[in-house]
């Protein structure tokens, strides 16, 4: 067939296909195309989940559940171009649900991710600025931490965050403001 329009070219590897093509193929049930998408996004998805739930084992659960949900709902996605944003929202919702479920089960303050295993070694490590930030973040009430992480670490807009967390943009601004005040205070020694 190729001879009719030009010389034969080497067949392109699937991994080099444009994302929209992979998304459309995955929508049709092409598992191989979906696997390429998962490979491409798994680190981003895991990091995003980890920042919200602040616990590696739980972030893994969230990432896995979100990606399987994405596979199930892919046929409903109208515009393949918006795959990344849609994936992001799916992971965000899942992670938020995990945080909320945990709050129903555990009294506030019982669990302090990142800080809970702090022994002498961890204390020493916490001298670092990044560790201090993670520790200070873990102390925040989850709604504040989530809004702040989405804004300052993931770069989402107020409207987007409001939609994700189910609050008004004004409430989101307030939470971010309070979170920032706490974090700035906790990081004062590094000034």
């Amino acid at each position, binding site marked *: *067939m190729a001879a009719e329009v030009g010389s034969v070219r080497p067949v392109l590897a699937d991994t080099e296909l*444009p994302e929209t093509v992979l998304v459309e193929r995955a929508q049709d049930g*092409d598992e191989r195309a979906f696997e390429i998408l998962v490979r491409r996004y798994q*680190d981003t998805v895991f990091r995003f989940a980890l920042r919200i739930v602040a616990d590696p084992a739980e972030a*893994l659960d969230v990432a896995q559940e979100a990606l399987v949900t994405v596979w199930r709902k892919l046929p409903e996605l109208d515009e393949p171009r918006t795959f990344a944003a849609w994936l992001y929202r799916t992971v965000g919702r899942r992670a938020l649900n995990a945080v909320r479920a945990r709050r129903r089960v555990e009294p506030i303050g019982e669990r302090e991710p990142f800080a809970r295993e702090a022994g002498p070694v961890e204390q020493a490590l916490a001298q670092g600025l990044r560790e201090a930030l993670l520790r200070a973040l873990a102390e925040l009430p989850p709604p504040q931490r989530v809004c702040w992480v989405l804004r300052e670490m993931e770069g989402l807009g107020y409207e987007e965050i409001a939609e994700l967390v189910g609050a008004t943009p004004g409430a989101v601004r307030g939470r971010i403001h309070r979170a920032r005040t706490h974090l700035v205070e906790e990081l004062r020694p590094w000034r």
Partner: protein
Amino acid sequence: MAVEPSDDHDRLPCGNTVDALLRHMTSGELTGHERTCEHCRAQAEELRPLVTAVRRDGEEEVTAPSGLLTDVMRAVRSERRSERTIVLGGTGPGGTEVRESAVAAMLRASVEAVPGVVVGRCRVEQTGEGLFVRVTARVAVGLPIPDAAGAARRAMRSLVERRLGLPVARLDIDVVDLDDSARGR
């Protein structure tokens, strides 16, 4: 600068917002005002450790645990979407059926030999008149679309007729985009 009431707690005496200042510090693009204004400079001093900490966290490579991909794909394969099959002709007893997804994969693969055309979605349906095929395609920039679509059509028709031994009732190609990356392939 539009002032939103909800911004008030965030506003410096000079009118700038802490949020805007933080954005500019993060991106390393302070405005002329922010570089010289005493309120902004004092606020920036307070925010600096936070900005540095966030940047360091961003530089930290986070890799998904190796089991994630395996587990996701295992779950995906275990809940294979129910799908129909295409019944091939031939003499019995017994019959030959091919899953629609397998036929779709073959159709996509048949177009791989056509330079500058990539098939995305591919739907097939068997009717009494033959096979209905509907695909979306991207064509390389600069390639005459009728020629490219014609070549893709011949490739798919040949596959259906020769490899599956079925008549083609209808074959629709929906060119959804021009593809820069497909050029010269």
